[in-house]
């Protein structure tokens, strides 16, 4: 129960961060990705702010074997930079550039009843289901992923 409440609180804070930062605004995201046009560098600072705050807590988490609520800490053993990572990230980048949405902001958009967010989330879930049913069997079987 405590873990569920923490996750809810974390999701709320995360969502506030996405709204405050402008990440949940696809127009702003495309302004950031448009290096050759009128470039709005703001969103680079979102990542800088997030990583800046998370750096010390994440280093601290590495020293622990269990979390505050007694769960195992995540396994960080997956280090390989393989084709699956590179191809997946490339496809993600193209989709991000086309739409101005990445997964978190799209879910926030859905929650706001924002029409493009709703359409995007449905398409994204379809993509994820496709992965679960077709691709995962092929690519994950060989690698024993997750």
């Amino acid at each position, binding site marked *: 129960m405590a873990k569920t409440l923490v*996750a*809810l609180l974390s999701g*709320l*804070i*995360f*969502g506030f*961060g*996405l709204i405050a*930062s*402008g990440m949940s605004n696809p*127009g*702003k995201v495309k*302004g950031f*990705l448009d*290096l050759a046009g009128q*470039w*709005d*560098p*703001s*969103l680079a600072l979102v*990542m800088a*702010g*997030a*990583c*800046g*705050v*998370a750096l010390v807590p*994440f*280093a601290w*988490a590495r020293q622990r074997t269990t979390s505050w609520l007694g769960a195992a800490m*995540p396994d960080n053993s997956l280090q390989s*930079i393989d084709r699956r*990572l*590179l*191809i997946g*990230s*490339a*496809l993600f980048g193209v*989709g*991000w*550039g086309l*739409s101005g*949405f*990445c*997964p*978190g902001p*799209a*879910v*926030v958009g859905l*929650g*706001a009843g*924002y029409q493009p967010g709703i*359409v*995007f989330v*449905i*398409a*994204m879930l379809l993509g*994820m289901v496709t*992965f679960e049913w077709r691709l995962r069997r092929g*690519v994950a079987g060989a690698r024993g992923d997750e």
Partner: protein
Amino acid sequence: MIIDWNHFSPWSALTGGALIGLAASLLLLANGRIAGVSGILGGLLRLDENDTPWQAAFVAGLLFAPALWAILMPGGLPLPSFTPEDGAGWGALILGGLLVGIGTRLANGCTSGHGVCGLARLSVRSLAAVLVFMAFGFLTVFVVRHILGN
């Protein structure tokens, strides 16, 4: 390159980013879990008695954030700008969604899992993912806006 100073919002970007970093730190330290949105959504697609409750709660937090923001914050919810003629009509939005869904699951992470959590734990694998998706994001907007001329 011309900087768009009119839309540049360094303080809200840093503040919002700090909140995201705080949320990710809380989930990791308290629950031992990575706040990667694509991983959490993908996890919800295969139900699991250990993970489904916290994953559903995290997504519920994201979904309720706009409503809570509208209640708590003076000035209400900022309106996102999306114009279908702005390089992404509905077709591009749907294609983009499919590619983001498949791509983030293939790569085991997105802007939050690799971009925030991965970089914060200094993972070279996540740095590679971030460099690739940023490069392809820049490239895609360049092609759509400046070559196809939308």
